[in-house]
Structures are given as C-alpha cells and as structure tokens.
C-alpha cells in the first residue's frame, strides 16, 4: 500500500506539467484538440489508479 499510494501523484504531474508542455505543439491531432485528448486520458488513468489504491487499501476491507 505504501508504494501504491504514490501512484496518486502521477495525475497531478500529467495535468499540471503535461498540459503546458503539450500546449507548445500543434493544437489539433486527428481533428481533436491535443490538450483535451491528453486530459481525458489522465481522467481515465486517475480512475484506474484510484481503483488500484482502493483495492490495495486495508481500510476498505470488510471487517
């Protein structure tokens, strides 16, 4: 659990560092705004990461 919970830092980096970096390249890729696609990807990844953390967290086990 100690290691797994650090995965929660990744979405912060993905959005707060990734978006400014991607903003420097062309805005549209395959007809979709690149920043939007990147943020959507991180939202899905956040749900996956939080799901893993939830399952590994002993506090969520039935007594």
């Amino acid at each position, binding site marked *: 659990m100690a290691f797994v919970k650090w995965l929660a830092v990744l979405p912060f980096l993905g959005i707060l560092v990734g978006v*400014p970096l991607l903003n420097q390249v062309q805005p549209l890729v395959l007809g979709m705004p690149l920043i939007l696609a990147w943020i959507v990807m991180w939202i899905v990844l956040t*749900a996956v990461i939080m799901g893993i953390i939830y399952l590994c967290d002993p506090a969520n086990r039935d007594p």
Partner: protein
Amino acid sequence: MSAALDIIVVTIAAVLCLGLLARRGKDMNLEQWSVGGRGFGTILVFVLMAGEIYTTFTFLGGSGFAYGHGAPVFYILSYGCLAYIISYWMLPPIWRYAKQHRLIAQPDFFAHKYDSPALGILVALVGIVALIPYLVLQLKGLGIIVDAAAYGAISPTLAIWIGAGVVTVYVMVSGVHGSAWTAVLKDTLILAVVLFLGIYLPIHYYGGYSPMFNAIDAAKPGFLALPAKGESVAWFDSTVLLTALGFYMWPHSFGSLFTAKEERAFRRNAVMMPVYQLILLFVFFVGFAAILKVPGLKGPEIDLSLLRLSVQTFDPWFVGVIGAAGVLTALVPGSMILIAAATLLANNIFRAVRPQASDATVSLVAKSLVPVVALVSVIFTLQGGTTIVALLLMGYAFVTQLFPTLIASLLPRNPVTRQGAIAGICVGVATVAATSLTHTTVAMLFPALPEALRDLNIGIVALILNTATVAVVSALTRRRVAFA
C-alpha cells in the same frame, strides 16, 4: 405560454412534490434538515457530491466558456479529477471527527479542532461570502433558462425572481432530503440531455467532431490552444490547483460529506467520480458547436450560447425538456447552497451571539433566514455584468483560503496555532476581496514579473500569502506559549 415554458412549469411542480414526499415521516430538526440525520448511503452521497459537477456552472457556464474562450475551458475538466484524489485521504478523517463530536457544519469543525469559537465565526463568514456568488450564478442561470424557454414572454428580471422563489420554497419544505432525491432525478435528466446535445449538434451542423474542430481552427486559429497571455499555461495551472484544493472547502460540500453513513463511501466515490465527470466533454462540444452557428455573443452573453443554439435547432417542446434539465441543475445545487448559508448564519453566527438559544430556536432561525439569503442573492444577480465562470472562480478564491488551516488540523501533530489560523485566513481573504473589488490582476500588481508568472490566478497568490502568514504567526505564538 409556450410549450417550452409549460414543460418547465410542470418540472418545477414535480420537484416541489418530490421535496414534500422526501420529508415525510421525518422530524425536521436542524440535523435532519441540514445533514439528513447522517443516514445517506453511497448512492445518495454520490449524487449529492456529484451535484458539484452538474450545476448551472457546467451546463450554461461550461458551454459558454468553451464558446467564448476556447481551450481555457479544459481547466473545468481537470480540477475535479485532482480534487477526487485529494478527497480519498482528506474526507474520511473529517467525517470521523465530525461524527464523533456530532458536528453539523463546516465552522463547527474548525472551531472544535482549534478550540476557538472565534475561528468558527470567521470560517462561517468566509463561507457565506463565498456562497453568495455561487448562489448568484445559479439564479443567473435560472433567469437565462426561463427567459429563453418563454421566447421573450417573461423578462430576465422576472425570471430571476421566479427562480429565487422556487428555490426558497423548495428548501423551506424539504431541506437536504429533497435535494438528495431531486439530485437523482436531475442527474438522470441532465445526463440524457447533455449526451444528446453533445452528440447531435456537432453531427447535425458539422458532420462530426473532427470537422467541427477543423472548422473552428480554420476560422479562429489558436482558439483550441492556451494563449500566450491572459488565460495562459500559468493561469491554467494556478486555476486548476486553486479549484482542486478548494473543491471540498465549500460549506455545502462539507455539509454533504456529513450526510454519509460510513467513510468508505468517500473512497468509493474517489474511484467513480473521475469517470462520471467525462460527461462534461459533451457540454463543451455544445459550446464549440455554437461558435460558428450563433456568432457574436460577447461578455456575459456567452452563457446564452447553449440555449440560443437549442432554440435555433429544436421545436419549442424539446427546448422545454432542455430548459427543465437546466432548471434542475440550478435548483438542486442552489438549494444545497441556501441550506448551507442559512445553517451557517443560524448555527454559527446566531448561536454565537445567543448561546442559550435552544436547538428548536436555531432550527427556526435557519429556516427563516432562507428567504433573506435568497433576497440578497437576487439583488446581486440583478446587478449582472459577470460571466457564470467568473462568479464561481471568485467564490473559489475565497473558500480555498480555508485549505491550509484544514489540512494542518488533520496532521498527527498540528503545527498551526489558532492565532496563526485566524491570521492566515484573514490575509488570504483580504487579498482576494481587495483584488476582486478593484479588478486587480497579478500583472497589474507586479508588472516586472516574468511573463510566466503574470497570469497566475489571484486566488493562488492569496493562498501563498495565507500559508506564509500561518507559518510565521504560528511560529511566533507557539514560542510565546512555550515561554509562558
């Protein structure tokens, strides 16, 4: 009356009936009225807390911001996702402490944790100041919807008065029970309407999403990327951070977390909520679709883009269905905000002035203050001149000032003293108030700053000053206690 208005009137009547049904068999004391007797399961807590996602702010403000500003609207999609991560660890200890000490409002938590009634009153005042712009934006949205659905038969001013009246009656009869059950209806209807509009309109007008974005990029180059100045990457990052930290600082968000039956509900929500907010994408798509089809909306008018495009595209009866969904997105969060504001005033201000008042008296005062808060909000709403998103960001800048003090109180050994907490909040709130009233930006205050820092959200600057003040004053007052 138009068919659209008929449908909206029927929806409002149905919601009031639902509110009356929700209170049946419950003794409406302050705890039942404001936190539902702490008996809500995962689903009800989920829809109450997800109510933050689907308010007028997202329905009209989100589409309007996409229409008027372009890529900066993506901040709305980003901050919730980060806030849910924070909530996984932050909400359970708050809920445990509140349950253990039978606390029913946000200021109680601060006052109890820091053993300082003065801090409780300060937090209540900050909460009320922040809630007013949030309530104003719900009423502004209600006014826009009723005005559009009436096809000009009802003036926006009258529409705002009608909206405020409906929210007030609704809150007075049902309290938080009505909000929870109507939230289920609201989320179902808004989900269907937003998905339909976000898929149908881009296909109907452009043939799909890619052709729509290509057309926008050709007509307005650079509109789909963050600009170099103004709403730049510095603005984006600081606004995402400010709103993510402040997400659960709203008094009504605190109120809805007190309604939970068990703490696992929060951790489950932290897993489910990020995906739930992807529906916001379809709200943005409606705003983007409107850019080339209803051009020319400027300033606060951008919030009209979704309804203008709907009126141009659909028959009146379907505009009524869209309007009904919009009314619910204003009514449910609006009622939660009114309950929170009235509870703060009665339980944390009135009770502080008259500590001998009985629970029944405080409960009566809370319900009596509902129309007063609504009236103040109507007065601010009628002054107008601000977009829905700007109103919410102003509220966020205020409530996020509570974050450093709250987080410190959850640490095993709290390094912050009550004097440090009060000083920090005062400095943060004063900074936000001064800059909001004078319309000052960081660039105006510090013109010599590098370009990357000049667009920082003023709320983040206030938060930095707040945290520094908390640290310095706590260090000084702790030392004084050690010497005493």
